[in-house]
């Protein structure tokens, strides 16, 4: 990849270019998001008109690899299969339906705007762009809204039983800090129903012979030749065999990297390997520091608790969040009278109260816990109390609204939220950052596309509730099936790269070398040991708030841990069979690299925006303060060159963001 070094035209965002920072990264060049030259609301139609088409009889001559069978991957694969392309689908799960999309609870947004509560596509765009604190592309949000309208129709048709009103039409509710009802749902299992429907649609194409499923196969590298993505290298998780598959285009839909914090609401096996390997091969990584921390997860209750569990945001509609006014007050919460309770969100944000956005709630809860007001055995939670809601609405109505969440809480903790307030704590939940892509969802490597949470699209610095299921569906069903074929059209008559091509062989050898290195480590600590240590560093330095004076320390600690990893890693067993320790080790090795970029991005982005809260950029009221003059762009990190002046330092390129429909404005929830 070419880049201009520090001599870039505007040297964007270099305001605090301290020598520290210059020792860590290079400011690169302005990059182009390939956005249509039309009004934002007309951009998608304009682009679709300019896309190239492939004749139906030629489609089966093209092979597309899709990695991932979550909402984005299953949809992209199924839709391309329906169109007649030959699709090779990979997933590390045993069957497609297990992808972590299945765990989403609350709902999926769609600006169908049938009610008279004044919703519209424009309002959806405004909510998405403002919610993201103006660090996402406005035109992308328009496409998300425009295509989002028909997502519900499609998902319902292929089997998702959306909740219905008594009149027989679709039910919807308001969600996640917006003032209109545009969230469609199936009880607290929306993700499950959308995922199963998508996995079934994929199954239909498997039966039709257009999609070929490669389950329990983990992508460990990307094959790039002459600057183009030509295939992937995978390891069969059962036999241990490493092999390559080549194609005309590759789509990554591999989910978020939040598990890098070790205990998050993501699944145990969620990981960043596919996108990190793509980054190392030349794909830019956008805004890695933009990580969403959800305010209402179950707190850790013991060292052995394997992960955090989300309690839906909808609980904040009726539950009141509080901590004791006295530090260390460990009385039974029911014995603490109102006068000795601090309803701190209501106190600090009288207008929005308990319904402030996720980042604001998380920061405030964490502040209370760190200041010594935490409750529960590990003093790491605050209360979410339904007492007043039960008094006001009656237990029956509260049960109807939240029964499955209350049951889940009860199943996990053995406590009954009807009689004892829930204990909740913030948890890493979603990553807005991910592989950078242009308007066509193509990364900086031609032929490599992204969809879903592994990309960076739409959500800017903070994702709105129920917008991610939507983006997975829109990417997979209604965007990639337009943009990928347009790329393929230019390759008619070209074969895929033969498997004995030197580029293929070299990539396979690289993967085998890395596996051998993992197996041949010093044998002191298992991979989880490092994962936990890394999680603790990120949690301490790069979660709800980031202090620029401390971040270089975090980088030092991550580097030391990485060195220790390669010295001391212990992987029991061999590589020629199912070996879960080896799988984990590879994922942790990649996390140890990505973590440094994440912290570097947090240090580099010299402003607060959405979930990225820098302690040196705070308004008088203690809120996040953006610096629009210098930072209205997406950071697109490019892997460090191996030699030359900037050797070893990642290059931060930047794509300026333009807001035409939603003028820049500071958030205010007071």
């Amino acid at each position: 990849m070419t880049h201009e070094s520090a001599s870039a035209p505007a040297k964007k965002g270099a305001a605090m270019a301290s020598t520290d920072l210059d020792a860590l990264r290079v400011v690169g060049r302005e990059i182009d998001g390939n956005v249509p030259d039309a009004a934002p609301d007309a951009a998608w139609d304009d682009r679709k008109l300019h896309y190239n088409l492939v004749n139906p009889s030629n489609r089966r001559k093209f092979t597309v690899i899709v990695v991932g069978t979550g909402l984005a991957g299953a949809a992209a694969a199924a839709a391309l299969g329906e169109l007649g392309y030959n699709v090779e689908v990979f997933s590390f799960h045993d069957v497609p339906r297990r992808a972590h999309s299945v765990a989403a609870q609350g709902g999926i947004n769609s600006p169908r705007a049938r009610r008279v509560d004044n919703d519209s596509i424009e309002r959806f765009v405004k909510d998405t762009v403002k919610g993201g604190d103006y660090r996402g592309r406005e035109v992308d949000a328009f496409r998300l809204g425009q295509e989002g309208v028909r997502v519900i129709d499609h998902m319902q048709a292929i089997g998702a039983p959306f909740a219905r009103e008594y009149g027989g039409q679709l039910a919807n509710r308001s969600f996640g800090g917006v003032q209109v009802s545009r969230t469609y749902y199936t009880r607290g299992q929306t993700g499950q129903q959308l995922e199963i429907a998508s996995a079934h649609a994929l199954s239909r194409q498997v039966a039709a012979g257009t999609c070929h499923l490669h389950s329990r196969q983990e992508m460990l590298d990307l094959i790039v030749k002459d600057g183009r993505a030509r295939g992937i290298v995978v390891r069969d998780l059962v036999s241990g065999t490493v092999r390559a598959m080549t194609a005309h285009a590759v789509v990554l839909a591999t989910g978020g990297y939040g598990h890098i914090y070790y205990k998050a609401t993501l699944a145990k096996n969620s990981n960043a390997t596919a996108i990190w390997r793509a980054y190392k091969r030349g794909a830019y990584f956008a805004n890695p520091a933009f990580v969403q921390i959800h305010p209402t997860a179950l707190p850790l209750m013991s060292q052995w608790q394997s992960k955090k569990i989300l309690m839906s945001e909808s609980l904040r509609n009726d539950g009141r969040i509080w901590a004791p006014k006295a530090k260390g007050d460990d009385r039974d919460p029911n014995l603490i009278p109102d006068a000795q309770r601090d309803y701190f969100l209501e106190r600090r944000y009288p207008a929005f109260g308990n319904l402030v956005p996720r980042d604001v709630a998380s920061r405030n809860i964490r502040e209370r816990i760190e200041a010594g007001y935490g409750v529960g055995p590990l003093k790491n939670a605050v209360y979410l109390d339904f007492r007043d809601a039960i008094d006001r609405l009656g237990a029956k109505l509260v049960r109807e609204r939240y029964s499955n969440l209350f049951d889940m809480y009860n199943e996990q903790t053995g406590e009954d939220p009807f009689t004892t307030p829930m204990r909740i704590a913030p948890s890493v939940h979603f990553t807005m950052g991910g592989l950078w892509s242009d308007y066509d969802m193509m990364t900086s490597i031609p032929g490599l596309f992204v969809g879903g949470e592994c990309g960076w699209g739409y959500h800017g610095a903070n994702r709105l509730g129920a917008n991610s299921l939507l983006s997975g569906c829109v990417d997979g069903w209604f965007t990639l099936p337009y943009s990928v074929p347009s790329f393929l059209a230019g390759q008619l008559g070209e074969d895929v790269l033969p498997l004995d091509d030197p580029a293929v062989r070299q990539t396979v050898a690289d993967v085998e070398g890395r596996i051998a290195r993992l197996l041949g480590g010093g044998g002191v600590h298992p991979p989880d040991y490092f994962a936990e240590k890394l999680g603790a560093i990120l949690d301490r330095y790069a979660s709800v708030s980031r202090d620029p004076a401390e971040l270089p320390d975090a980088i030092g600690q991550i580097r030391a841990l990485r060195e220790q990893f390669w010295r001391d890693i212990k992987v029991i067993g061999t590589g020629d069979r199912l070996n879960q320790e080896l799988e984990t080790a590879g994922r942790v090795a990649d996390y140890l690299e990505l973590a440094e970029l994440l912290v570097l991005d947090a240090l580099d982005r010299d402003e607060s925006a959405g979930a990225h809260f820098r302690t040196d950029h705070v308004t008088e009221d203690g809120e996040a303060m953006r610096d629009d003059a210098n930072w209205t762009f997406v950071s697109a990190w490019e892997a460090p060159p191996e030699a030359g002046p900037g050797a070893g330092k990642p290059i931060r390129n930047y794509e300026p963001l333009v807001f035409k429909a939603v003028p820049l404005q500071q958030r205010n929830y007071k």
Partner: protein
Amino acid sequence: MRLILEVWRQESPRVPGRLEAYEITDAREEMSLLELLDRLNHQLVEENQEPVAFESDCREGICGTCGIDVNGVPHGPENNVPACGQHVRSFADGDTVRIEPFRAAGFPIIRDLIVDRTGLDRIIQAGGTVAVDAGTATDADTLLVTHEQAEAALDFAACIGCGACVSACPNGAAYLFTGAKLQHLALMPHGKMERGKRARSMIAQMEHEFGPCSQIGECALACPAGVPLSAIATLNKERLRALLRRKDN
């Protein structure tokens, strides 16, 4: 708390397996059964022994990845709870707990506690799908579905695909799984179009890989999604309906 775990160890499908006993001295009531296995693995790795291979992902009861037999019962002692939601508090200090893979002819063992459940997916591929391509669906608001019908569809669609029903069944039948899908899609407007055809093809595939049903009902007790036993009646009804009507829908 002290527990003895008797765990099925089997290196690959080709070699015979055996039960191995391990002692855990610091189990805690609030641990889930899978966290107990994590604890065991931690211990094994410290002793340089290969950890027990077992599957899990979401660890919150929705993905259907986890699945083990605990003292002969799929997922564990509590009814209708997946292994990741079962807790050590169900056992007493000093208990011996036998942990084995899901046992069913349709689920070949891959390694230790991991089995191959793709047979269920092949039932879906045989027809558990709806023939609507992207972009061609009608407006979902114009297709009226009663509140009750949508809720009922969800009761059956809630299946997490874990395979506990198959393992619970002495015959290794997949009736609950297949019946749930037939009922779910029969209640959906587009799903109705291929109702008869679907019943024929899914049932044929099911019978090809899984055992017959003798109406014992263990499956519904094990089901973590609480799929009602009526799914089995549905399957038999749909079979008959398809046979008599001889139509696609």
